């Protein structure tokens, strides 16, 4: 298939500041102010940790906060010049979560060093230090993305390539020998010595681009040329073929890799982009029915047949009654983690023990999957509620960019990415708080793990890029007529549709 025609970049995109009409507010200073506020919170968190762990606040307490502050300031400068109209809340909100993550991981390193009577790790050593280094790398990559891709529509040029890359990334660990790819029974990694990445994390970005491009191109056929069956309009198979193929393939691979959480995310991503593209609620209903039906069948199969479904059945049993002794003490797949996480959260209560004053080390995997439980013991319900609001803010700001951007491709990409981010937060936090069965997932921007951090920062860079396009004044309207005016989004995007088959 040939690459689709891509429109020329917007005429005003040369000369950075010149495209800002006089009197137009870019809100960049608001972003800077919020960023400073976020860094103050991170610094206070780090200082409280030292006060509680050592009984004094040393000069070294401020260094991690100062370092992450400088990094985010750097990205802020890049945004200021490459995406001046970008949403001013996105970057500070993510920076706050990322900064808390680095500070909390360092807090775990300090506690471990004290317990094992070892010297405390250097600023760039330990999990916290590694996370700091990964933050640096992620921010550089995000900046590069903002610098290279001045118009998000360019991405659609590589949609099929990205679709292929996405599939390869998902499949890679399954194809590689387990010695390279397996960690804790799940084959999701590529390891080189002590360095490892999770390629699947990046697949999310590639797949959403492919889905968006394909669905935009086939929009009319998908919603018009359909067959009615049981009162629901089904599109023709050939129109849906490639998307379903890609999606099913990734789903199968993930089930094979035992990464149910990510499989669920991709399922959600697919259903929601399909729903947004076709505007047919029937897709949601079909998606939900398929999902819950599949889960129930897997549960029943796990109870009767066992085999590959036994793991799933165990997880469901553990979820239904984590405190039952037989679930707590079972050999594999016990509820120990979940219970310890819940006990940590409960011990934290409303206000939490205070940063550095809890015992998050008692929760297994507290650096990755269970970081929210460890954090919850120390910052309490109020702190976690604030974190939840931050995540919600990021997701809704992403959706707002999707609403306001004028092209369908941008709408689907931003909407898909924002929704997936929200779904990921729901899946992991719902899992560790016992709301839904637990599936291994990282908590975006918080958990230790370079791949997840980097992929999610790329996601944020993409949202920043699209929000910039969404919020910038309509070019061609004449610089002598500043002020917000009605964008043609009112016309359902049809007039500004830029990608043609």
């Amino acid at each position, binding site marked *: 298939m040939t690459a689709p025609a891509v429109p020329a970049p917007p005429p005003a995109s040369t000369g950075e500041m010149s495209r800002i009409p006089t009197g137009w507010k870019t809100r960049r200073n608001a972003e800077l102010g919020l960023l400073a506020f976020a860094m103050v919170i991170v610094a206070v968190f780090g200082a409280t940790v030292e006060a509680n762990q050592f009984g004094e606040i040393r000069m070294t307490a401020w260094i991690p906060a100062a370092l992450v502050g400088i990094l985010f300031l750097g990205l802020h400068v890049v945004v200021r010049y490459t995406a001046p109209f970008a949403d001013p809340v996105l970057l500070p909100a993510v920076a706050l979560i990322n900064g808390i993550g680095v500070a909390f991981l360092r807090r775990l390193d300090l506690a471990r060093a004290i317990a094992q009577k070892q010297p405390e790790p250097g600023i760039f050593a330990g999990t916290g230090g590694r996370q700091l280094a990964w933050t640096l790398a992620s921010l550089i990559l995000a900046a590069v993305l903002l610098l290279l891709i001045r118009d998000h529509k360019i991405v659609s040029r590589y949609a099929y390539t990205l679709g292929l890359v996405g599939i390869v990334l998902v499949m890679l660990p399954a194809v590689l020998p387990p010695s390279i790819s397996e960690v804790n029974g799940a084959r999701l990694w590529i390891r080189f010595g002590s360095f490892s990445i999770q390629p699947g994390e990046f697949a999310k970005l590639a797949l959403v681009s492919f889905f968006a491009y394909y669905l935009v191109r086939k929009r009319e056929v998908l919603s018009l040329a359909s067959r009615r069956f049981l009162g629901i309009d089904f599109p023709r198979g050939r129109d849906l073929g490639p998307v379903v193929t890609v999606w099913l393939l990734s789903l199968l691979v993930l089930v094979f890799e035992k990464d149910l959480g990510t499989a669920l995310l991709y399922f959600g991503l697919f259903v929601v982009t399909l*729903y947004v593209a076709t505007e047919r609620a029937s897709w949601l209903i079909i998606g939900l029915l398929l999902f819950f039906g599949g889960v129930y069948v897997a549960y029943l199969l796990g109870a009767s047949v066992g085999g590959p479904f036994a793991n799933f059945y165990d997880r469901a049993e553990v979820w239904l009654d984590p405190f039952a002794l037989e679930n707590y003490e079972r050999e594999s797949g016990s509820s120990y983690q979940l219970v310890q996480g819940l006990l940590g959260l409960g011990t934290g209560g409303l206000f939490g023990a205070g940063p550095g004053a809890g015992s998050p080390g*008692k929760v297994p995997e507290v650096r990755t999957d269970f970081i929210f439980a460890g954090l919850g013991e120390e910052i309490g319900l109020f702190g976690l509620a604030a974190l*939840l609001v931050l995540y919600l803010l990021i997701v*809704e700001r992403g959706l707002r960019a999707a609403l306001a951007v004028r092209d369908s491709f941008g*709408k689907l990409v931003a*909407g898909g990415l924002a*929704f997936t981010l929200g779904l990921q937060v729901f899946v992991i936090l719902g899992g560790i708080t*016992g709301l839904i069965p637990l599936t291994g997932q990282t908590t975006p921007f918080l958990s230790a793990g370079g791949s997840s951090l980097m992929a999610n920062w790329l996601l944020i860079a993409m949202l920043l890029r699209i929000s910039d396009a969404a919020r910038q004044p309509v070019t061609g309207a004449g610089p002598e007529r500043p002020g917000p005016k009605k964008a043609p*989004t009112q016309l*359902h995007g049809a007039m500004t549709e830029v990608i043609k088959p």
Partner: protein
Amino acid sequence: MNAPLRRSGVVILVLFGLLFANLNWVQFYKADEYRTHDFNSRVVVAEYETPRGVIEAGGQALAQNKTTDDELKYLRTYPEGKIYAPVIGYKPVIIGATGIEASENDFLSGASDKLFADRLSSMFTGDNPGGGNVVLSLNTKAQEVAWKQMTDNQRGVTKGAAVAIDPGTGAIQAMVSMPSYDPNPLVSHDTEAASKAYNALVKDKDEPLINRAVGATLPPGSVFKVIVSAAALQNGYKTSTEIEAGSVYREGGATIRNSEEEVCPGSQVTLKEALTESCNTGFARLGVALGADKVKDTAKAFGFEDDTIKVGDLDSKSGLSVAASRTGEIANPDGTTDTAALAQSSLGQRDVRMTPLQGALMAATVANGGRQMRPYLVQKLLGPDRRTIYTAEAEKLREPITSGVADDLRDMMVSVVENGTGKRARIEGFTVGGKTGTAQNAEGANPHGWFIGFAFDESGKAVSAVCVMLENVPGGHASAEAARIAGLIMKAAAGRGGD
């Protein structure tokens, strides 16, 4: 496309709303339950943040703490090991606590209401002094003598128990159970090693974890004749009253013989002589003559059938649970008295079962003029600063017999030690009374040897009442060894021995 995007936003909002609601459930509604849950090891760590109070007796620490550098800051240690283990128990990291460690846990850990003022002041001063200290009533000399004589007994018996009580107050002077165990491995911070040590003790067929002094009930044999004597004296008999005896007594299918041919072969014997020689036929006839109700009622008056007693502190009535002693069924299916059972029960056989503590209480009651004092182990509770918070005040538990009956019983029991079967319990310079018991149990097994007794010092003050029980004593005269040990324990309790 905007309408579905907006709806997706609503979906996310709902999902986050669910997360928030569930977080409230976990961190607010369930918070207290989770904070104190058994699976929450933070509870344990917090518990070990402050030193637990010391358990002591006679100025000697029996349970104390050692500072460690692991996560649990204090390790509990029991310097005397096996000697006091059945009384003090242990306070392990994950298994449940037992003994005084369990019953006084609130006070030792500092959580007791009695220590509220200390907790309040530590809130302001910032330093936490830890829990309160428990001073036991045990006489360390008596305890050591009891342990040494029991475990080193001349018949090689491996199971048994001994209890000594101050008759006037009910204070426990010594409490030994054999075999015992070392509580130190059980409280190891290495919980796996601790569980292993615990499981080994649980599986041991000699049941070292049972405190036989309060937790084991065995047929008391002739010791029960004290009860029957009391019943007789309450019902108009005198110590000099002649009762029917003889070498053989057949009743309702049961044949009662005396332990030896030369014991009360004549047809008549005084009540006092019957007890002195432990005349089986005499007491079997006496029991039948009195009737089942009188025997059972007297036993009950002495403390049989009571399963509410706890030996610990008199204030909260918490402590080691005491198994109920029982006279058992003495009736036919139609409700009439089973005279064969009554005849055998009057000798402390058949279904009569008694704890060693109950035996000591019986002797103490006689020595104390008929008033039975409530037994206790906790003499004092001291605050973390060793300020006295509570001192045991002796409390009458029950008064089964009048002082007149008690005096008669006392004479009869003194005669047992001076002229009869309990000669080996004699202590020079003291007036010692008692009663032996040799209890048949299983077919072909060696009998249990019992001795209950009391001692008055030169000034006529009752200094100690004791019960010694040895299970399955080989070599005949099972009770003689128990009587010998009992004498030594009482002597040590009176401060005249054990050095």
